[in-house]
């Protein structure tokens, strides 16, 4: 019971520490921290639209967090979710743009599959290198992020650019492939439900299936897992497919649910933020739900801080997010060490 309580106490403590550092920094920069925080809260919850925007962002963040987490469980560090997200989005766009006449019930699942496959394809090289040649996955996954972004940039500024557009973007995808909106006059689409469902699915896989047992075994004790008859390569490939696929789906959600086209630089680093959210959520598929919602609140609130008078630069929110993750993790570590003493 006590351990259970201690497990979560790091969050309020971490938040208080992070907010103090954040406020001190704002003060030092000549802002009024109380007014800024007020703008942050009002900005995120002030209206239905703003509150809905939080959840619009939660969908891709949750998916990239799950992508990092599932691979992390088997000790595979996929730092390439950003690239996989871009390629997933690209595949979703390319598939969707071919499906003009098809009913949604057919076209959307096909597009989902295409984006999943795209994400997996982008992780395939690091995955094969890891399994066949035991090459560490960190560097290949990171480098492929830049490759993916540059590839998409080139495509949307040339080959697939909408000739009538003034900025580098493509034509819109057919209406039938758009994800339905859940609350009228907002951008909140059903992709959010889909993301929640996937979080629950990952939770089920990890906790209730033999596969999940094997994945966790490979992560926690690779040698003992091998000794117990658990195949390292097989499980690494499976988490790789799930991880790359989930990141690809995050890209699909942005194309089908929000932008309805490809546009240069459409991801504000969802792939990277997923890593921080996974850590904040203790690498737990249920824990990343509140973590991604909270993260998103800060993102949306941060935008209104930027519009407040005097405007607080949006970068300050990134500072707050970073300090928050660090303080929660440090407090957690501190409590664990103290408990063991």
């Amino acid at each position, binding site marked *: 019971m006590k*351990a259970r309580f201690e497990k979560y106490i790091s969050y309020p403590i971490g938040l208080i520490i992070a907010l103090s550092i954040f406020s001190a920094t704002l003060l030092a920069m000549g802002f009024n921290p109380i007014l800024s925080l007020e703008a942050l809260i009002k900005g995120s919850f002030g209206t239905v639209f703003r509150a809905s925007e939080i959840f619009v962002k939660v969908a891709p963040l949750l998916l990239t967090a799950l992508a990092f987490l599932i691979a992390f469980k088997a000790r595979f560090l996929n730092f390439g979710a950003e690239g996989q997200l871009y390629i997933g989005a690209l595949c979703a766009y390319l598939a969707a743009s071919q499906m003009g006449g098809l009913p949604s019930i057919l076209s959307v699942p096909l597009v989902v599959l295409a984006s999943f496959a795209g994400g997996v394809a982008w992780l395939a090289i690091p995955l094969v290198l890891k399994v066949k040649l035991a090459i560490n996955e960190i560097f290949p996954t990171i480098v492929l992020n830049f490759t993916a972004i540059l590839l998409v940039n080139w495509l949307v500024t040339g080959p697939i650019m909408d000739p009538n557009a003034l900025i580098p973007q493509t034509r819109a995808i057919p209406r039938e492939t758009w994800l339905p909106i859940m609350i009228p006059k907002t951008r909140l689409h059903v992709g959010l439900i889909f993301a929640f469902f996937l979080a629950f699915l990952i939770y089920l896989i990890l906790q*209730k*299936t*033999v*596969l*999940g*047992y*094997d994945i*966790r*075994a490979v992560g*926690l*004790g690779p*040698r*003992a*897992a*091998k*000794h*117990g*008859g*658990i*195949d390292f390569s097989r499980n690494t490939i499976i988490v790789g497919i799930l991880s790359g696929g989930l990141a690809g789906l995050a890209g699909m959600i942005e194309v089908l649910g929000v932008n309805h086209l490809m546009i240069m630089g459409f991801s504000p680093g969802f792939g990277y933020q997923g890593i921080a959210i996974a850590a904040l959520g203790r690498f737990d598929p249920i824990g990343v739900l509140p973590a991604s919602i909270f993260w998103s609140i800060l993102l949306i609130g941060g935008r209104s801080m930027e519009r407040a008078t005097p405007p607080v630069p949006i970068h300050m929110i990134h500072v707050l997010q970073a300090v928050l993750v660090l303080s929660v993790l440090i407090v957690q570590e501190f409590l664990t060490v103290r408990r063991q*003493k």
Partner: protein
Amino acid sequence: MGQSTGEKIERLVEKLRGNKGSGQQSRLRKLKPGESIIEMRGITKRFPGVLANDHIDFDLKACEIHALLGENGAGKTTLMNILYGLYRPDEGSILVQGEPVIIRSPKDAIELGLGMVHQHFMLIPVMSVTENIVLGLKSAREPLLDIGRAEKRIAELSEMHKLKVDPRAKIEQLSMGERQRVEILKALYRDARVLILDEPTSVLTPQETEDFFKTLRSMVNQGFTIVFITHKLPEVMEISHRVTVLRRGKVVARSDTKLTNPSELSKMMVGREVAINIEKQKPEEGKVALEVKNLSAMGDKGLLALKNISFSIHEGEILGVAGVSGNGQRELAEVLTGMRKASEGKVYIFGRDMTNLSPKKIIEQGVGDIPEDRSGTGLILGFSVAENLVLETRSMSPFSYRWFLPFAKRYFLDRNEIHKNAERLIQEYEIMTPSVDAPARNLSGGNLQRLILAKVLSRNPKLLVAAQPTSGLDVAATEFIQRKLIEQRERGVAILLISEDLNEIMTLSDRIAVMYEGKIIGIIPASKAQIQEIGLMMTGVK
């Protein structure tokens, strides 16, 4: 409060060190033999679900070897970890030369003149002896290292205490005995006056142990004080001046070693009389369970570790493999269980060629393994007790089920069955754990081994490989495990028993194979084996 304690520690450090800055030897005069230097009063330490230390009183007099005797999990290591600042006691106080101190960290302990050699060495394999010893210390030429001077001083210390070791050797090149000397030198280099040695002989050969005891005696004569944690009675009798016996976190006896005797100590340590007296039935000649033909394999360093080995084991037979560790026994077990590839030769299990198949296939063939490396290979420390127990049977009935998916494989875990299984095995194998959901990490050494045994034997293997199954375990656990092995043999299981403990080999085996430098020097029936003869063969004499 913090400051005053700090000052106190400072004062005591000075006291322990004698006149500040007047050379190394000056501290010796301060400690008269027999003078009490450390007193631990009413030390209590609770871990989740376990009372590790229950109001323990412990005192240490200058220039003595004080044995701390007890079974695995009796609380010996916890008590010394408290003294060394690794844990904080929940209750109780520590006095150094009559003055209360608070030891917050090993750093404080080192400043007080304490040094601890852990059972698992804290050395970095790729670094040299000198680099390991000076690790974390200020160099005389900050920010540059002063390896030359350090080397000289280490050579001096090693000469003075007869702790022979090459300061330039890399740790990974050293034997366990040498590594232990490095750990002791590390403490001496930090001017330790009191050495805490946790199960120091568990990594030593009998010959090394003898030399090691000589070193300890000469150190005591030079004014050092030694705490000797052990569960081996003969060692207590041979080396210690006084002995404190712990059982289940409590002190059950404290005595001058001269005034006691092994059977009395053993009774106090275990709480009942034990006599390891294992009876075996005559083996029935069964089918050939394992046949190894001309097997060779590489070791970790890329050198040939197994050289052209051939032998066979029948059902209901125990083949003991004797030998000083590091002569290919580990590699042999690994090849048999699929953890290492054979470079040449064949392994037949019940007549089927199983050479270089995956551990999974070999498990399916009915092979069970109790590996030497318990916490890394035998178990997953981050997994719960219940989860560990189904490591090899997780995808079988009743631990997993198909649900309605129309595939041949079992996909879903049955938590209830896994729990029931764990509850049953905990009873049967007398595993002490706070609960079946507690991580294996929380279990003591003996209980980890019981857990492995339960995991392996519960799936009824037909061929069992057991490597050092009782090393480092206390009397009760050793007896339990040896009885289980005999029980398996009577069930008709073929057993390959690899052990450094000659008595164990002699008691349990039907035939004994002796390994030396990757070869089998000879195989003799246990009934005809003489311990001296085997001892000679272990050193390569045929």
